[in-house]
């Protein structure tokens, strides 16, 4: 996930802001990390370079 798409991401449930925490990043993009919705108190993972913005209580 490139940092420049952060501005178009939101919580899929409340549409609120997400806070980014990076665990692994290369010169191109974020590979592993977490996007947190503080309002919903939910963490959405970034895994293998892809942000997963599926509702976390119902996804597999």
């Amino acid at each position, binding site marked *: *996930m490139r940092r420049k*798409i952060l501005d*178009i*991401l939101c919580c899929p449930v409340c549409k609120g802001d997400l806070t980014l925490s990076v665990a692994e990043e290369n010169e191109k993009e974020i590979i592993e990390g977490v996007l947190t919705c503080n309002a919903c108190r939910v963490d*959405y993972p970034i895994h293998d370079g*892809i*942000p*997963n*913005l*599926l509702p976390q209580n119902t996804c597999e």
Partner: protein
Amino acid sequence: MEHDPAQVYTPADDTFLLLDAARQEARPRDSVLEIGTGSGYIAGELRKAVRRVVATEINPHAAASAREQGIDVIRTDLFAGVRGTFDLIIFNPPYLPTAPEERIGDWLEYALDGGISGREVIARFLSGAGRVLAPGGRILLLISSLTGLPNVTGIAFEEKYYAEVVRDQVVEGERLYVIRLKRNGKS
């Protein structure tokens, strides 16, 4: 992630028809959102012609495939995890009428299964797309005669879009359509 190509929709006639329409529709300054990008084929081809392309995909195998093409892909349902507005939204939805007993229960189903009417995902899309569509923005939506052209344009009208058919092509017993949608009125 090791992704399984058998779980990703392979570009087919519908893909090529939608890409053809999108190439004509896209303008260099457009910010484009592709919903359900699948393999990422259309997004990858359009990237050269516009300012920005972002794609969503619910199927993890397809999302991984699109990322391998260098697409900015977000794993989410339709546009649930996306905000901001886009000048052009492109969607090749699951449009096949599918009875519960016909469901196959794999990831490919998300590319195909339009519910009993074939219009369930399209209706959800049209009901929410206004949130991410820029003023004056356009939508290109691919459907089939199996989905029902009058039914889909009817839903679009109820959601306050003008609809016009910009491409059509007969493919093995069905007719594919690309519909161009714009908001009614000045908004």
